[in-house]
């Protein structure tokens, strides 16, 4: 059988009556970047959490580097790095202290932790404020600290949930370049969840689009665009999602009470939105 970095078979997870992930089959080869796209609540974060062994699945199997996650939980956690959606940080620690703490969690030797932390702080431009408590950090800075934390044990597989969403353009650029580097130079496997289609198009070798827990389509960006007969990835995404026409979305404005009262302040904003022709 062929060897994959990440392989799932009929992976299913439900929260009470909500089916978050439904019979997901993924095959992600080593050294590739995989992008999971989908609307809010599609099941992306749930998938990533299952792949990391943070939550358990209801049914189906997960193999990370061909090892069953159920019997190799510790191993899987050691070789995977994870950037969570919302930054989980100790507000009362400094960035440096927090990263050292994460290193301890992964059983790294002290000397390795220290050098690795300094390296990462330097890389993300956090060195100057590394001794400030995290409670005073901005959201993007916190995101950077979390990114450092995800990379600290030099994991083989890296999961990134919305990696660039709170970063300034320069840092976002840097992160994107970093991801490319990690793949090319260090041969890492990267799994990204994102809404940002340009990020997906630029970075990902393979893309999957998920909706209501079901994988709708999979392939390289160009394959997806060709198969759907779309002009670009955004167009393809909207087609797959079956988003109705913009006119439909705006129809509520024509017959609402809203129209009569607060017209002036509303109109301008809505018009600015990108018009999409489907």
């Amino acid at each position: 059988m062929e060897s994959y970095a990440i392989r799932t078979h009929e992976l299913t997870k439900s929260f009470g009556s909500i089916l978050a992930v439904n019979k997901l089959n993924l095959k992600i080869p080593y050294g590739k970047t995989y992008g999971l796209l989908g609307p809010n609540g599609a099941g992306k974060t749930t998938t990533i959490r299952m792949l990391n062994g943070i939550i358990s699945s209801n049914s189906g199997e997960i193999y990370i580097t061909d090892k069953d996650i159920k019997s190799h939980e510790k191993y899987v956690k050691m070789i995977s790095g994870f950037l969570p959606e919302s930054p989980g940080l100790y507000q009362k620690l400094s960035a440096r202290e927090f990263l050292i703490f994460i290193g301890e969690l992964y059983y790294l030797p002290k000397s390795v932790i220290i050098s690795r932390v300094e390296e990462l702080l330097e890389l993300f431009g956090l060195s100057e404020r590394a001794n400030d408590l995290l409670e005073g950090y901005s959201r993007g800075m916190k995101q950077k600290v979390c990114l450092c934390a995800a990379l600290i044990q030099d994991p083989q597989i890296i999961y990134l949930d919305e990696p660039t969403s709170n970063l300034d353009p320069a840092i976002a650029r840097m992160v994107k370049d970093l991801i490319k580097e990690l793949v090319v130079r260090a041969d890492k496997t990267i799994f990204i969840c994102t809404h940002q289609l340009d990020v997906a198009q630029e970075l990902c070798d393979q893309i999957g689009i998920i909706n209501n827990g079901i994988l709708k389509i999979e392939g390289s960006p160009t394959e997806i665009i060709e198969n759907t007969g779309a002009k670009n990835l955004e167009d393809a995404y909207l087609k797959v999602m079956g988003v109705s026409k913009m006119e439909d979305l705006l129809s509520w404005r024509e017959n609402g009470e809203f129209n009569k009262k607060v017209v002036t302040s509303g109109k301008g904003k809505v018009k600015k939105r990108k018009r999409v022709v489907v």
Partner: protein
Amino acid sequence: MEPEYESQVNKRKLWLTIAKNEIKLRTSSFRNNRKRFFIFSYLILILWAFIIAPLLFDSFMPTIAAQNAGIFKPVVALLIESFMMILFLIILMLPLNNVYNKDEKGVKESLVASPVLARDIFLGEFLGKLPLYTFAVLIFAPIVVGMINPIIDLTVIQYIIIYTCAFGLVYFANLIGSLISSWLEHKILKSESARDWGKALIMILTIVMVIMMYAVIFFINEILMNPELKNWLSFYPSLWFSNIILYGIDPLLLNSYILNIWFSIGLAICIPLMILYLSYKKAHVFYSLEGISTKSTSVTKQGRNFYSMINKLAGRKFGGLVIVQMKLFLRKKANLARIAYVLGSVGFMAWFTSSTMDDYKGLILSSSILIVLGGLVSSIMLGHLIFINTKDIIWVYKKSPRGIKGLVYSYLLNMLVIGIFISLFITILHSLFAKIGLLDAVIFFSLFLAYIPISMLQSIGLQCLNPAFGEKDSNMKSNSIISMLIMQPAIMMPIFFLIFFNPETVLMMRIVMLAPVFIFNILVGTILLYIGMKKLNKIE
């Protein structure tokens, strides 16, 4: 902006919207039948206020009155006064207690974005609290009334006076409390570290309030002898209201006061209304919508030796994690206040128990009780804090190969380290008060220290079962109550077994009193912790 639109915004009473929202927030557990909840609970309270409470007090107050026929009226007067004094303080403290626990920064921000003004939010939040404070009045006022009714046979007018004053006092106290807390929250304690100190301060204020309550009880005779002493307190608002009640009962009761009835009525009506009006008009002075700015704080190298010592103590596997827990714990000033509370209360008990016991057996008894109390207080005050502010961090631990165990064990070890200092302090106090020898002191220290983590097993286990991520979470209250219930047998056990076995030797005494407690707590604690960690591992 179109004039039509503007007038529409102005016509809407935004404070009313906010008040309604506040009520909804506070009754969210009854959100499906809020109306019924209010009707039902008000019905019960009115039943209590006008039927049950009068009957209850009627049944025993007359006999007490008969026994103390001569001084009864002044005593009742004093009771009413002190009751209202304390009530005023308690109600004033309530909003203060919530100052630093509002996790509504995000909500506030979206409020700022709307056309709402600071004054609307202030007034709305204040009014929104009133229905619940009305509950408080309907619960407590009947007690005041119940104390008076059997002796005086209150007329309808006197009833009305008493209830009006009670409502007035409670609303006014709430207004002042809201003012101070808004001011603290928005204008004074803006940086995170200042907020920390604020929390510690409020904790200490609460302790002061308890002391005041005791002071009233202790000095009750003094005040009865010299009623004019109360004139020193005439600025204290609760007296204005209680004066009106006293006058309503018997005008003679006011004779020794500077404040006569007209002054009292004037102050009781004008000052609250004036403050309400001014606070509405000038809300921007103490209430800002800018949100809390967090000044960035740098950590210093301070205490390096201390931490490296802990690192060695905790061992290679857990050293780093324990230090993290330790830093997190000590960097919150409110936690220092908690430790002070533990030291204070157990220290007081050390003085109390050792001063009442005189022979050697009494000493063993008192030290055993002290050990159990020390574990109880520290487990309730400190053990339950394990998951405070770790809502997102839980995932970090879960993701790591160490899992939740990393968090639980390192917190427990951290508590052991803090326990060393607590034990040392209490041992010194105990040795001084009870004049014990070195050997006894060492034995006491080791047992005291050992019992702290043992008694914390169950509080941490309970937290794992039902984690509280904020100090004011409802889980926190229920967990602490369960914790106290579990510890009840532990407090009873030493004395029970002492009486039951009546051991002869000192060693046997120690074993009989402490071994069952230790075994009980280890058993209950490990079972709870085991189940709790299993459950927490499955958290999603």
